[in-house]
């Protein structure tokens, strides 16, 4: 440990004297630790990468300016810079909160806009028109019952009273109307979904 810190001190001093390879050695030596420390706070690879970069830019500037006071604590000093930048990051984000969707949770699964967008409204309109057209192809008695039940929302009792047939007959006509509609839809591969 002592050897590593003293080596750090030597490398820092070399770098401040213009030896660029000393910086390469310092970064190589500590990059993983610094990066993981930042990532453990922000849990976002891109943000961690940005903060990591800013941390070392600050290190480079300070060393080049000769403003670094070597006390044999290079790594703790770098970690402190990283820590401060992480705090800055969270402060910035608190002013403008950002929500990111993760793999296991998507905010739009709980937040939704009930109204249809333009495309879905057109599709819905098209589907309803297609269904109307299919209903028109049904035999008259089945069509009558289906329209009363689905569009006019009448009960089978009301339908039987209005059409003068028994409830069972009305139910049977409705059943055949749906069977026939399904047959036509299957036969022509009509897609009626939004």
């Amino acid at each position, binding site marked *: 440990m002592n050897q590593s810190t003293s080596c750090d001190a030597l490398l820092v001093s070399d770098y401040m004297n213009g030896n660029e390879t000393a*910086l390469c050695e310092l970064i190589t030596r500590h990059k993983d630790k610094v990066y993981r420390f930042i990532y453990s706070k922000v849990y976002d690879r891109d943000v961690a990468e940005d903060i990591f970069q800013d941390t070392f830019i600050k290190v480079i500037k300070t060393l080049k300016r000769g403003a670094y006071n070597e006390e044999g604590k290079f790594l703790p000093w770098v970690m402190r810079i990283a820590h401060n930048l992480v705090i800055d990051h969270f402060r910035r984000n608190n002013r403008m909160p950002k929500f990111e969707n993760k793999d296991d949770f998507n905010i739009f699964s709980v937040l939704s806009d009930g109204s249809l967008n333009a495309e879905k409204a057109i599709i819905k309109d098209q589907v309803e028109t297609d269904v109307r057209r299919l209903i028109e192809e049904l035999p008259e008695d089945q069509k009558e019952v289906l329209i009363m039940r689905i569009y006019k929302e009448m009960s089978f009792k009301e339908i039987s009273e209005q059409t003068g047939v028994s409830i069972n007959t009305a139910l049977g006509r409705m059943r055949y109307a749906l069977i026939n509609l399904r047959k036509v839809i299957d036969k022509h591969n009509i897609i009626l979904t939004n």
Partner: protein
Amino acid sequence: MANLYSEPSRAERVSKNLVPKEETIKFLLDYSKALSVIDYHNLKFEALLN
């Protein structure tokens, strides 16, 4: 045998495979080479030379 209920710290839980990108390291080394600090009457000016 007694169970251990202690949890590793957040930093320890971070995967060992997480490392900074090569580009970032290269950028930092290039930045360092390009940066020079000019001293002038107790003032320090930073200059980026490409």
